């Protein structure tokens, strides 16, 4: 898969973080990036078009990232979509919960662009040089 073919959905209630992540993704040539400010909007988007990856914040009001992850994993059409959980907690217990709930991987804030890209490429099995 090439970076230009990848479709990514970024879900975070903070618009600053959505902008920062989108800018990082654009710099490596990802062209199709949608974003959502909450889990319900994200779920509607996921059901309406295909994505290769969801980058999902853990802490969100209304529908938490964990609840959205569980909704994705129990939906027949969505259950295979990879999810990269974003958290500001580096606690082992939370990481275990994320993995047990079906997260493909996790990343802890603050993170560098290099770390995000490395994790993304590993999940999507694309070369980092794109």
């Amino acid at each position: 898969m090439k970076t230009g073919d990848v479709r990514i959905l970024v879900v975070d209630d903070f618009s600053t973080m959505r902008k920062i992540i989108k800018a990082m993704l654009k710099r490596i040539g990802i062209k199709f990036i949608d974003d959502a400010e909450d889990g319900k909007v994200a779920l509607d988007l996921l059901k309406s078009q295909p994505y290769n990856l969801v980058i999902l914040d853990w802490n969100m009001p209304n529908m938490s990232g964990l609840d959205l992850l569980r909704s994705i994993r129990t939906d027949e059409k969505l259950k295979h979509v990879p999810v990269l959980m974003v958290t500001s907690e580096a606690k082992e217990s939370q990481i275990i919960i994320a993995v047990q709930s079906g997260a493909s991987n996790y990343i802890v804030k603050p993170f560098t662009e290099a770390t995000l890209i490395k994790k993304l490429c590993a999940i999507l099995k694309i070369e980092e040089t794109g």
Partner: protein
Amino acid sequence: MHDDYLTLAKPFIQATQHVLSTMAFVEAIPGTPFIKKGLTAPGDVSAIIGFTGDRNGTMALSFTKKCAIFILKNMLGDDIQDIVQDIKETVGELTNMISGQSRVNLSQMGINLQAAIPTIILGDNHTIEHMKNRIIITTPFSTPQGEFFVEFSLEQLPQ
């Protein structure tokens, strides 16, 4: 100043420097922590977050306007639509991240805390409502474009 205050300030100082350098590419130089008098915010826009767990407490960030705009521009470049909203969100998110990293550092000292979602406050002479009758430790930080402050207050700090 009591040794415990300085010992506990270090996790917050290290977390602040790590978060600012990683997310905003800003080298934040810490000054000497001091005991704060009163609740008035030292900056123009602040965020406070509550802690529970081994000790109840609070942590807050407070930015001067100039410093907040500088950090925002470093993080977002030209992609700023609503500067007031973006500053509020950025201060809240930075507080979230510094809280997370501080708590990792504190857990290595045997103090395990959980945090709530930050509350953002702005306006002239606003106050930061830490726990009543508790010591508040403030550390000033300088950046190329102004100052910001990190405050914390925890139970069991010697009075």
